C-alpha cells in the first residue's frame, strides 16, 4: 500500500486547488461539499487501509522519495514522505477527525457566502498538516509547519469583515512565527552540526556525534522546543490561542484543538532521539508543560465565553502532553493527543452547534437550560466534558490523563512538582469543565433556540462521542485490565519510559485519589453553579482582582504589548520618515546654507568686490611676509 502514501496529502491539496481555481465560477454548494469532504474522506479511507495493512502484516512503508526539491552543495532536500507508527497515529487523527469536521462544516457553514473559500482553506490545511507529520526531512516538515500556520491565519480571519478577527489572525500568525524562528535556527544548527536535515539520519547520527547532556543537543532541543511552544500555544507564547477562537467553530475544532496545535507535541516526539541526549532540555519541556497546564487551567475557570473556556482547556491539555514528553512518557503523550483530539473536537463542534442555535451567542452566562432543548448536543457535550475532566473509568480521557499523572509520579525523570502540577491541574480541569456544562445546559433558558442542528451536525458528534467514550480502552493501566495495545505500537519508534524503583505498588492509590479529586471537583462545580449560584457570585466578588487577572490570561498580552509591541510600534511610527534620510536632508540643507552664504557675498555692490580684492591682497602679502622673513 505504500505506493499510495503520497496520495494522502495530495488528495486534499488537489481539492484545495480545485476549489481555489474555480473560486470565481460559483460552484454549487453540493459540488463544493463533495470536493471538500470527498478529498479528505478519500485520504481518511487510504489511511485506514494502510492502518489495516499495518495491523495485519505489521509492515509499514518506510519512505517514498517523490521528487527532488532542491539541493545545493551538501544540502539536499528531497520531497520525501516517511511513515511510521507515530506519524500513522497523527495521520489517522488528522484525516479521520478532519473528515468528520468537514462533514459537520457542510451544515455549519451552509449559509455563509464564502462556502467554497472555507472548504478550500480547510482542505489546504489538512494537506499541509499531513505534510507536516509525514515529512521525511525537517525542511519539508517546516513547509507543512508554515503551511498550517498560513491556513490557521486564513481561517481565523475567515470572517474578515469583522476587523478584530483579522487582528486575531495576524496575532496568531506572528506569535507562532516567533516560535518558528527558534525552530528555523534549530534547523540551521542541526545542519551545521550534522550536515543533514533528514529526520531519520539525524536520529541515527546524533547519538554517535554527541554525548548525553552536551551543550549542542541541549541548545538544539531548546530551539526546537521554542518552535513547539509557539505552535502549540504553550507558555510563554500561549496568548494567541484564545483570540484564535474568532474563527468558525469547525476551525477551532480542527486546527486549534485537534491537530495543528499538537504539532509541537509531534515535533518533540518525532525528535525524541535528540531529547534523550539532552535531559536538561527535556526537563524544560516538562516545566513548560507544567506551568502552562496550571495557568491555562486557572484562566479557564474565569472565562465567560464558551469557546474561550475550551481554548484555555486546550492549552492546558497540551500542557499535559508536554509534561508527559518532559518526563519521558512518550507514548502517553501521543495517547493523550489522540484522545484529546477526539473529545476536544467533539466539545468544539458541540459548542459550535450551541452557538449557532443561539444566534452566535458566546457568553455562557446568557445560555442555560439547553439540556432539554437540545438533548443530542447535550449528551455528546456531556460525554466530551466527562472525557476532558477525566471522569473515572467510563471516559477515555481518564485513561490517557491518568497515565500521565501516574507517570509524573513514577517516572525516573519526573519530580514531585510535576506530579503536584498534574494533580492540581486535573482538579481544576474538573471544575471548569463542569462549570461550563452546568452553566450552558442547566438552569433556566436565557436565550431561545432558533436553529436545531441537523443530521450532518449530529452524526459527527455522535461518532466522536463514541470515540471519546471508548477509545480509552485500547490502553488500560496495570491495575485495571492492563491493555497496552496503543503503547505497543511505539515499541520501535519511541523510547519506553523508565520508572523509579518500587513504585508500582502506589499506582492504585494515586489512581483512586485523582479519581476522587475529579469527582470532588465535579461536585463542587455542581454545588456552585447549580445548587447555590450565590456562592459562586460571592467567591467571584471576593476575589475580583485574581479573577480579572486570570480572565485576562495572566495579563501576558499586556506584558508583551508593553515590552515588545509598543516600543517597536512607537519606533516605527516616530521614525515613519526615516531618521537616516534626515542625515541626507541635513547634507542638502548644509549645501544650501553654504550656497546662500556665498551668494550673499555676491551682493552686486562694486565697492564690496574691490574691498574683497584689497583684503585678499593684504592677506596674501601678509602671508608672504610671514613665510619669507
Amino acid at each position, binding site marked *: 500500500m505504500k505506493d499510495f502514501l503520497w496520495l494522502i496529502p495530495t488528495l486534499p491539496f488537489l481539492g484545495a486547488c480545485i476549489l481555489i481555481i474555480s473560486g470565481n465560477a460559483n460552484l454549487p454548494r453540493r459540488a463544493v461539499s463533495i470536493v471538500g469532504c470527498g478529498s479528505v474522506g478519500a485520504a481518511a479511507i487510504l489511511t485506514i487501509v494502510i492502518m489495516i495493512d499495518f495491523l495485519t502484516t505489521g509492515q509499514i512503508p518506510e519512505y517514498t522519495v517523490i521528487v527532488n526539491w532542491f539541493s545545493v552543495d551538501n544540502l539536499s532536500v528531497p520531497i520525501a514522505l516517511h511513515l511510521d507508527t507515530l506519524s500513522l497515529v497523527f495521520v489517522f487523527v488528522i484525516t479521520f477527525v478532519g473528515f468528520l469536521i468537514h462533514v459537520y462544516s457542510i451544515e455549519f457553514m451552509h449559509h455563509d457566502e464564502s462556502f467554497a473559500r472555507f472548504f478550500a482553506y480547510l482542505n489546504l490545511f489538512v494537506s499541509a498538516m499531513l505534510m507536516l507529520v509525514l515529512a521525511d526531512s525537517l525542511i519539508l516538515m517546516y513547509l507543512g509547519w508554515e503551511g498550517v500556520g498560513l491556513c490557521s491565519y486564513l481561517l481565523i480571519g475567515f470572517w474578515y469583515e469583522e476587523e478584530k478577527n483579522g487582528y486575531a489572525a495576524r496575532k496568531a500568525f506572528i506569535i507562532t512565527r516567533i516560535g518558528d524562528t527558534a525552530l528555523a535556527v534549530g534547523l540551521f544548527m542541526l545542519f551545521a552540526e550534522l550536515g543533514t536535515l533528514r529526520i531519520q539520519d539525524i536520529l541515527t547520527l546524533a547519538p554517535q556525534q554527541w554525548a548525553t547532556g552536551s551543550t549542542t543537543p541541549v541548545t538544539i532541543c531548546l530551539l526546537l522546543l521554542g518552535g513547539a511552544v509557539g505552535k502549540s500555544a504553550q507558555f510563554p507564547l500561549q496568548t494567541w490561542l484564545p483570540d484564535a477562537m474568532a474563527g468558525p467553530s469547525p476551525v477551532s475544532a480542527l486546527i486549534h484543538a485537534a491537530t495543528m496545535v499538537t504539532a509541537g507535541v509531534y515535533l518533540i516526539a518525532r525528535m525524541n532521539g535528540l531529547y534523550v541526549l539532552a535531559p536538561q532540555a527535556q526537563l524544560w519541556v516538562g516545566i513548560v508543560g507544567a506551568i502552562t497546564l496550571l495557568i491555562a487551567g486557572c484562566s479557564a475557570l474565569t472565562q465567560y465565553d464558551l469557546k474561550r473556556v475550551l481554548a484555555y482547556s486546550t492549552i492546558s491539555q497540551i500542557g499535559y502532553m508536554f509534561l508527559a514528553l518532559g518526563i519521558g512518557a512518550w507514548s502517553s503523550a501521543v495517547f493523550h493527543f489522540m484522545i484529546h483530539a477526539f473529545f476536544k473536537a467533539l466539545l468544539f463542534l458541540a459548542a459550535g452547534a450551541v452557538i449557532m442555535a443561539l444566534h452566535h451567542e458566546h457568553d455562557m452566562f446568557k445560555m442555560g437550560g439547553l439540556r432539554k432543548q437540545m438533548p443530542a448536543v447535550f449528551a455528546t457535550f456531556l460525554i466530551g466534558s466527562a472525557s476532558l475532566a477525566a471522569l473515572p473509568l467510563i471516559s477515555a480521557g481518564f485513561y490517557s490523563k491518568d497515565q500521565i499523572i501516574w507517570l509524573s509520579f513514577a517516572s525516573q525523570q519526573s519530580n514531585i512538582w510535576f506530579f503536584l502540577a498534574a494533580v492540581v491541574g486535573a482538579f481544576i480541569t474538573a471544575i471548569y469543565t463542569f462549570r461550563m456544562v452546568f452553566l450552558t445546559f442547566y438552569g433556566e433558558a436565557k436565550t431561545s433556540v432558533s436553529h436545531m442542528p441537523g443530521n450532518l451536525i449530529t452524526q459527527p458528534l455522535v461518532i466522536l462521542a463514541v470515540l471519546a467514550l471508548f477509545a480509552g480502552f485500547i490502553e488500560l493501566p496495570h491495575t485495571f485490565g492492563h491493555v497496552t495495545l496503543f503503547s505497543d505500537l511505539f515499541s520501535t519508534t519511541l523510547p519506553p519510559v523508565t520508572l523509579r524503583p518500587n513504585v508500582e505498588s502506589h499506582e492504585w492509590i494515586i489512581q483512586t485519589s485523582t479519581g476522587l479529586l475529579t469527582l470532588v471537583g465535579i461536585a463542587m462545580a455542581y454545588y456552585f453553579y447549580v445548587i447555590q449560584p450565590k456562592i459562586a457570585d460571592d467567591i467571584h466578588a471576593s476575589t475580583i482582582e485574581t479573577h480579572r487577572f486570570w480572565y485576562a490570561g495572566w495579563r501576558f498580552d499586556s506584558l508583551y504589548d508593553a515590552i515588545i509591541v509598543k516600543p517597536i510600534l512607537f519606533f516605527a511610527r516616530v521614525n515613519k520618515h526615516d531618521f537616516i534620510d534626515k542625515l541626507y536632508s541635513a547634507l542638502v540643507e548644509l549645501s544650501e546654507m553654504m550656497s546662500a552664504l*556665498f*551668494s*550673499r*557675498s*555676491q*551682493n*552686486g*555692490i*562694486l*565697492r564690496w568686490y*574691490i*574691498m574683497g580684492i*584689497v583684503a585678499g591682497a593684504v592677506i596674501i602679502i601678509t602671508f608672504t611676509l610671514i613665510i619669507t622673513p
Partner: protein
Amino acid sequence: MNAAIADQALMLAGILFVLGLISVLIRRNIIFMLISVEIMLNAAGLAFIAAGARWGQPDGQVMFVFILTMAAAEVSVGLALILQIYHQLKTLDSDAADKMHG
C-alpha cells in the same frame, strides 16, 4: 640725485596708491571712483618711473607711456559707461547698479 630719492619716490607712489584705493572704497559716486582709479594708475606709473630712474633704464618710462595710453582708453570707455549708467539709473550711485547680486 641719489638712490634715496628713488626709494622715497616709491614710497610716495605707495602713499598715493593707497589714497586712491581708499577713495575707491569710500566713495559711492562713480565719477569719484573713476578719478580715484586715475590716481592709482598714476601712482603705479610713478613707481615705474622711480624704478627706471633707479636703474637708469628707459623701460620704466616706456611702461609709463603704456599706462598712460591705457588710462586714456580706460577713461574714455569709463566715462561712456558712466553716461549710460546715469541714463539708465538716473543716479551716479554705484551701489544702485547692483543688478548682479546673487
